[in-house]
């Protein structure tokens, strides 16, 4: 079974969520410079995580229904993070604090095992993403992401996908047509 689903069910059962949040479209969950060690579960809606370079917004990751989303750098280091997390549309989240979550993880050998699986998947996803960035052909980048996350194209508007794929919306439209 999907490790995330396993954890969600248990956290629901044990009533461990610390909070529930509702964001309206374009609302910021997190801005640059803040420390955020929460883990967020997306009940509905979608979000983008980005960094601001000068005046360019570079999207690092998305979160949509049934994903966990976090400012992972801050979650791990407990230090400030540059990341912006913004709701793309009306979004509902369940929140669990790092301490609550880590206590939950460490509460059973099974949970620790599942956490290790999740971490392994995360590392693997980061490696895939690293390869995305190093792929110079826009068509090849598009194909890679389409293959591993077809759901993305149902949930997220084109202009944001284009930014994530590091191409203009026009180039993305052209690629999708051909």
């Amino acid at each position: 079974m999907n490790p995330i689903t396993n954890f969600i069910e248990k956290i629901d059962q044990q009533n461990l969520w610390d909070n529930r949040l509702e964001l309206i479209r374009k609302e910021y969950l997190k801005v640059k410079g803040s420390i955020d060690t929460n883990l967020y579960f997306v009940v509905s809606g979608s979000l983008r995580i980005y960094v601001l370079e000068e005046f360019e917004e570079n999207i690092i990751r998305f979160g949509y229904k049934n994903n966990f989303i976090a400012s992972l750098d801050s979650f791990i280091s407990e230090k400030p993070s540059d990341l912006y997390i913004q709701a793309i549309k009306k979004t509902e989240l369940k929140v669990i604090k790092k301490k609550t979550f880590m206590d939950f993880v460490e509460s059973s050998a099974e949970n620790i095992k599942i956490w290790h699986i999740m971490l392994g998947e995360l590392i693997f996803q980061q490696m895939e993403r690293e390869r995305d960035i190093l792929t110079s052909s826009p068509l090849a980048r598009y194909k890679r992401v389409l293959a591993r996350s077809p759901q993305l194209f149902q949930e997220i508007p084109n202009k944001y996908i284009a930014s994530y794929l590091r191409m203009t919306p026009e180039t993305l439209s052209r690629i999708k047509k051909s």
Partner: protein
Amino acid sequence: MTVTSEKLIQDLIERTRININQAENFSSLSAEKLNWKAEKDSWSILQCFEHLNLYGDFYIPEIKKRIESSKTQPKENFKSGVLGNYFAKSMLPKEKLNKMKTFKDKNPIGSKLDKSTIERFILQQKQILNLLDKSREIDLNKTKTAISISKLIKLKIGDTFRVVVYHNERHLTQANKILE
């Protein structure tokens, strides 16, 4: 007022996040609502934003300049200056919003305004977030900035940040009242 520098910076970052969210909310309103005035000489919502933009035009470059030229080390605590604390506190929106006289060069009445006014404000807030983050590397007490109303007065940069962020809150509260 004494507080840890890190707590101060985190508090101002969080207030700025809320200010950005309020601005995003306003930007979804109609041009009509945004330009509406209660009385001839009172401000519309867009005028509130433009006023804040005019202040940002002075303070953002000023704060940036002082941070970049500061040769200080970060200090654990920030102790507010007498004048800085007074200015900062007087900016905070109170229960009953008191009217303050606006300096002529920061009076937005007469300017041509539209949704890009709000976008500009949001962009300025992101610049302020950059500066707040950078300010973790300097001494918030020893680094001083000028203020917009007088070249003779200098404030501790910690207080300058408070003045700017609280001032934003003040006028966003005013803008919310206009909606009612």
